[in-house]
């Protein structure tokens, strides 16, 4: 649609942020497949090389002689995957939970929101540590663990919005035409929550990435030899003085990704609001 394109043009920052993210995502998918190096085979004759353009290892190598570029790109893959999946889970669950609680109200609302309160009060980090000790360091565990907590905020915010939406006249007007139940929530409540949800979702994505990095930093994330950005930073931090590139490269990439997501949210909200001047 041309109205879209026009609005997009007024948000060049959004476009750039989206482009950078897309480039990182594509590179993390394509480059490892084409590269002669992989993320796990040690090359003991090429230990901790600094970045250099000649010799094939553009970003240098780590203490086991593995190509840093490939490891960082694999880290991006893992981090983006966790971020997107966990955010998706949290948005879907959070919006559904909050919208139903807010719209239906009464005892159901009270029950649903007390459930949220209970989950909120679970000390999360110890909980995940216990979980990984019991079930091992599995990647899917990270998805579930992060998804399971990050929907709580969204549910609360969405519920509040739904509560105020349901008093609005157009909801009443829809009710007068016989709209009810799931259709009311899906057609009339949820679309009007979009603005809030998008902002919150784009705030959730970087939070989740940081959280995954944090867990990996603590050694609870992905299993070696696989790396996420968090575990790369953790490894790099250990060798910071001798080989700063091992810390700086993944940290810079992480910062870039998070910055872009923050920027994206702002523009997306404007783009998706039909009331924004076309």
């Amino acid at each position, binding site marked *: 649609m041309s109205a879209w394109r026009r609005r997009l043009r007024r948000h060049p920052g959004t476009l750039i942020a989206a482009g950078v993210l897309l480039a990182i995502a594509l590179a993390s998918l394509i480059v490892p497949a084409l590269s002669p190096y992989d993320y796990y085979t040690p090359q003991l004759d090429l230990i901790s090389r600094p970045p250099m353009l000649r010799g094939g290892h553009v970003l240098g190598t780590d203490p086991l002689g593995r190509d840093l570029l490939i490891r960082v790109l694999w880290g991006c893959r893992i981090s983006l995957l966790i971020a997107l999946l966990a955010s998706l889970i949290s948005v879907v669950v959070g919006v559904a939970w909050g919208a139903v609680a807010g719209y239906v109200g009464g005892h159901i609302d009270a029950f649903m929101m007390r459930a949220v309160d209970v989950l909120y009060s679970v000390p999360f980090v110890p909980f995940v540590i216990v979980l990984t000790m019991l079930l091992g360091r599995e990647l899917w565990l990270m998805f579930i663990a992060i998804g399971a907590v990050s929907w709580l905020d969204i549910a609360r915010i969405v519920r509040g919005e739904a509560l105020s939406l349901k008093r609005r006249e157009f909801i009443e007007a829809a009710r*007068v*035409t016989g709209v009810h139940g799931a259709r009311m929530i899906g057609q*009339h409540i949820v679309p009007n929550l979009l603005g809030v949800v998008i902002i919150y979702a784009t705030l959730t994505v970087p939070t989740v990435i940081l959280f995954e990095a944090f867990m990996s930093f603590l050694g609870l994330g992905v299993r070696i030899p696989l790396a996420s950005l968090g575990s790369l930073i953790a490894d790099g931090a250990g060798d910071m003085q001798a080989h700063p590139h091992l810390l700086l490269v993944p940290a810079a990439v992480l910062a870039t990704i998070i910055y872009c997501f923050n920027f994206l949210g702002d523009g997306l909200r404007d783009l998706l609001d*039909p009331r924004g001047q076309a």
Partner: protein
Amino acid sequence: MSAAPEPLLRIRELGVRYTSGRETVDAVRELDLDVAAGECVGIVGESGSGKTAMLLSILGLLPAGARVGGSVRFHGGELLGLPPAHLNRIRGSRIAMIFQDPMSALNPYLRVIDQLSEVPRIHGGLARRAAEQRALEALEAVHIGEPERRARQYPHQLSGGMRQRVMIAMALIGAPELLLADEPTTALDVTVQAQILTLLQELRQRTGAALLLVTHDLGIVAQLADRVGVMQGGHLIEQAPCEELFEHPRQPYTRSLLAAMPRLEAPA
């Protein structure tokens, strides 16, 4: 009035009581009103006289804090206390409502056509295409120019008058027998008001729907209504055929209402 045939809408001893904390307010008290098929009844009264509460109670739209008593029968069937599932079948298809402010009564995130076609999709079980066709017909019926283009727009892209036309189209698309209108022209400017009134008049004649119109504007009532009821403090203090009420108001309150109305010519 002859009681023999059951009127389309029969309200008996309707009472609406709002409770908040220890305070109770009786918004409507012991109200009796009949609306015959195809008839237009206007209810006038000042703000807070209970007009809107009366209207909302018919379709069970009052807020949770309100207690409703008495009886509202539609086609002989009781509406008050009807389970929501039954009420939903009547809403929009047999009784529809036009709201005061078309801006806040249209969902800002839905295109006109999506909003309109929702009604036939729910009630007629029509598929998307057929429902959209009906929506376009409804837009034509309310004289919206370029219905194809307007249908794909969002409410904020329409003018106030056009939005109210969309509201009316939305009310009429289910071919209801009874139309409830709560101050349908108050939010519009004067020239647009006149157009909307003409439209309502025309549609009523074409579809034969009864209209229960609530307003504080006696001019509108004079133009549209067959019968007029006057509400004050929750009571329906007077009802009479339109001309009779304007010519020979019985209650002093009605007289003062009429006196307060700026008039350029004798009402129709």
